[in-house]
Every structure is written in structure tokens, then in C-alpha cells.
């Protein structure tokens, strides 16, 4: 029990959170410089799970991947500290809500909503990159069919239309280049045939599966070959968590900004004073160094 209390107090320490945030800043900054010299090491993450990548690429190229592995650990610790601090703050905020008006109450709750959104985003990313199916290199020609692995679904590319810039296109060098690429996917499963339009930036979602065009052919006019697409097939359980996290984060942020501005206008206070709405935590208030400017 003591251990849990001590750990909780340790993780709820504001200094620790700040150290973690700036350590992550340093890791990602250094990492972005290292990545420039080893791009293919990290491109591999686009089509494999995190755990596969760590074992295959991460462990075999530690000189270039140490920062990423370190960042994963730091992110995990940050998620822990955010959970602890967020819980402490929420408990304290709920306690202090009595007597506050609706708007002030929402203002006090908004940082918690932001932090919850951040946690959901992290969790969603973790789930997305560790669990689920992510298949690249699915080359599908028109009228060709592929079976979606792990399911009874078959996909056919019924048609693919590539629009090109005309001769004398406004922008030099673009004549004959692709302007748009749209296809029709026919999904065949036990329920029958389902036609869906697919395009660049316009994937197809069907029963938890998603289909994306990664590349297409032809890339120039006048080529007499069967068109094809290079398709990505995904089953991503983390995407809903990320969407939820993004919505919460965005809502919390908008709420906070609007309410801070409202109080600034009404009270003549600096919004910075009101922005810093940390309330002492009943568990770790002795460790928080709260500044109100």
C-alpha cells in the first residue's frame, strides 16, 4: 500500500512531468535529425507493427533507432504521469465544482478533458500500431480480384479513371500529368456485391476494413496498358480511439479558450491567470509548486 502511495506521489510530481515533456522534445528533435540520414529504417513502420519493427529494425540498428525506443519509454511514462496528475486534478476539481457556476465549472474541467483526449490519442496510436492488420503492396489491376487476408471478402477493381492535365496546361510541365485518379471497388462478401468509389485521399471503409490507394498507373497519358492500383488494406482498431481522443482534445481546447476569453472580458483579469487553473491535489498538493501570476 505504501509502495502504491509512494509511486502515485512520485508519478504525480509536476517536475517529473515537465522533465518528461522536455526529454521527449529533445528525443524527437535529435531523432528527426537522425531520421534524415536513415529514412528507410523508419519508413518500414508504415507497414509493420511496432513490436515487429522493434525486434527487426530497432534492435538491429540501435545507433540510429535508440532515440525512438527511448521516446516510446518516455511516452509511456508521460501517459502514466498524465493519468495520475489528471486523476488528482479531476478529483480536486469535482470537489471544488460545488458553488461554481456552469461556465466556471466547465473552465475548471477543460484541462482534464484536454488531458483525457491526449491520453486517448496516445492509446489509439498504440493500438493502431500494435494490433490490427496493415497490408501494403496489394497490386490490383482492373477486373482483377484479390482476397482480403483473414476474411472471406474479395475485392475487384471494376474501373479506374485517371484524368490528366491537357496540352497547354496552365502550369508548365504538368501537361500529360495525372490530375485525378478515381476507381470503383467492388467488394464481394456473403452479403453480396457492394460498389464503392475509391480515390486518392478518399479511402473506402467497409465492415471495419479500410482500403486506400497508395499508388496508381498510368501516370502519363497515352500509355496502352491495363491500369492498376497499389492498394493498402487495413483493419485498424485504434482509429476510433484516436478520433475520440482528437474530438475530446479539440473540444477541451476550444472550451478552454472560449471560457478564458469570456472571463477575461467579464472580469478584466489576464487570461493567463485564469488559464492556470490548477487546483491543489488532495494527494500530492505538497509536491505541486503552483504558480499564479
Amino acid at each position, binding site marked *: 500500500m505504501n509502495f502504491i502511495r509512494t509511486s502515485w506521489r512520485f508519478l504525480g510530481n509536476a517536475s517529473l512531468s515537465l522533465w518528461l515533456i522536455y526529454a521527449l522534445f529533445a528525443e524527437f528533435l535529435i531523432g528527426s535529425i537522425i531520421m534524415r540520414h536513415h529514412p528507410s529504417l523508419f519508413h518500414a513502420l508504415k507497414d509493420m507493427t511496432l513490436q515487429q519493427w522493434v525486434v527487426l529494425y530497432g534492435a538491429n540498428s540501435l545507433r540510429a533507432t535508440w532515440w525512438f525506443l527511448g521516446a516510446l519509454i518516455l511516452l509511456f511514462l508521460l501517459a502514466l504521469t498524465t493519468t495520475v496528475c489528471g486523476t488528482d486534478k479531476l478529483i480536486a476539481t469535482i470537489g471544488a465544482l460545488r458553488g461554481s457556476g456552469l461556465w466556471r465549472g466547465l473552465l475548471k474541467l477543460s484541462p482534464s478533458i484536454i488531458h483525457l483526449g491526449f491520453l486517448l490519442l496516445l492509446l489509439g496510436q498504440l493500438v493502431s500500431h500494435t494490433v490490427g492488420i496493415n497490408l501494403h503492396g496489394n497490386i490490383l489491376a482492373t477486373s482483377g480480384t484479390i482476397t482480403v487476408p483473414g476474411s472471406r471478402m474479395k475485392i475487384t477493381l471494376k474501373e479506374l479513371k485517371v484524368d490528366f492535365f491537357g496540352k497547354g496546361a*496552365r502550369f508548365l510541365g504538368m501537361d500529360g500529368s495525372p490530375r485525378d485518379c478515381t476507381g470503383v471497388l467492388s467488394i464481394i462478401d456473403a452479403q453480396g456485391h457492394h460498389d464503392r468509389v475509391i480515390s486518392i485521399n478518399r479511402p473506402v471503409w467497409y465492415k471495419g476494413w479500410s482500403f486506400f490507394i497508395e499508388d496508381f498507373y498510368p501516370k502519363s497519358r497515352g500509355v496502352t496498358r491495363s491500369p492498376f492500383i497499389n492498394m493498402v488494406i487495413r483493419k485498424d482498431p485504434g482509429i476510433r480511439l484516436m478520433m475520440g481522443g482528437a474530438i475530446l482534445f479539440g473540444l477541451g481546447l476550444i472550451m478552454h479558450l472560449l471560457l478564458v476569453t469570456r472571463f477575461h472580458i467579464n472580469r478584466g483579469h489576464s487570461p493567463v491567470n485564469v488559464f492556470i487553473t490548477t487546483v491543489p491535489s488532495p494527494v500530492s498538493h505538497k509536491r505541486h509548486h503552483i504558480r499564479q501570476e
Partner: protein
Amino acid sequence: MISLRFPIETFYIASLIYGIALLCYLLKLKRLSVLCLVTAFTVNMISEISGRYLIWPYCNMFSEPFFLPLCLAGICLILIILKRDEQALSMVFMIVLFSCMAIFFSEGYYPPFTLMSKSIYAHLFHLFVFIAHGSLIAGAYLAIHSVFKKKRDDIPYQIIIWGFAVLCGAGLFGMVWSYMGRSDVISWNHYYFHSIAIWFYYVGFFHLHLIRGWDQKRKAWILLGGAFLIFWFDYLPQIGGLHIPGVLNARLYELY
């Protein structure tokens, strides 16, 4: 039909008027300076809108050098409306500096066209990023300005708060754009990771109040560091890095 040279030429005109605004400020002709600033902002806005219209539905992903003066001018005008004329006009030299950088160091106006940029989320992402960068740079400048004036001022921090909020919005739109186009919310390249690094930098800034000893003066230097990171990692690559200047060759557009 609008000529392809139109957005670039209007940007030159806007830059000239920004220069006149700076001259008026230095000659202590404040009213004229404000008038020039308003005019230049309008012309810059016309340049920006026409440029976007010409390449619509594609997105100009590297037009931050041309957008930044507009954003900074917008912030100046907001400060003028809030009756902070002195602070607003002190920023004009920065607007002129960034305009000159766009004219003399930028390597082009129109982007290479990629189908990936043909997305409303691409437009929203880039717009939000450019506004965020402008706000964060302006906030840093004003914070340092108030340190040197030995005056306590909360306005820079308000600008930083909004700038960070817009940056978060940019991140969310960017995630959506990346997912729709590449099937993954994360782009596994160095651009993404240095952007995340800068985001964490500002997240840290907003948690500094939890630690004793971080007064406005010390925080101002943190903001300056953030502005430098934005300039080095985001702005410079868009003008092709540090290189010998040369005016954008408008003759090329006669070929179009």
C-alpha cells in the same frame, strides 16, 4: 483569367507598402504607418487568395514565406484595435524582414503538384500551421520586447496561447489528412517528428507554471527558443535553406 504572375506581383506591392509603413513608423508618422499597414495587409490578402484560387483544388504546401507577413500584419492590426499601437507598430520591421526573405530567398511560388495535396484537410492543415507559426513568432517577439522594455505584459502570452491552440488544430487536421491519404495518422519522416518536437516544446512551456521560479522574463527566453525552432526547422526548408539570395525570376511565369 488571372495571370499567374498576379499573386507574385501583388506580393511585391504589399512588401513595398510594408516597407513604407516601417519608414513612417521610424519617422514617427504613426497614423500613416497604420494606414500603410492596413493597405499592405489588404494587398497581401489579395495576393494570398488569388494564389490559392489559381491552384485550387491543390494546396500550396510551401507558401509559408508568403503567408507569414500576412499573419504578422493581421496580429498587428488586432493589437491596434486593442489600442496597443506601440507594440503593434514595433512589429512592422519583422513583417518587412519576412517579406524581404520571401522575395530574395524563396525559390518559387507555385508548388509541385501532388494528388495528395488535393484535400480540404491539406488546406486546413497548412492554413492552421502558418497562422500558428505566425502567432508563436509574434508572441515570442513581443515577449522579448517587453523584457527589454522592463514592462510586465500579458498580451504576448495570450497570443502564444491562441497560437498553440491553432497549432493543435493543425495537428489534428494533419492527422486526418495523413490518414485519408496514407492510411496512417503518422508520417514516418523527419518533418513529422520535428513538428512533434516543437509541439512538445510548447506543451512544456504551458506546464512551466507548475514549477517555481519561472517568471515572465525567463519564459520569454523559452518563447524565443520556440520561435527559433520554428524558423530553423519549418521556415528555412521552405526557402531552400540558407543560400545566396536572388530575386524570384518572374520571367519564368511568361512561359506558363
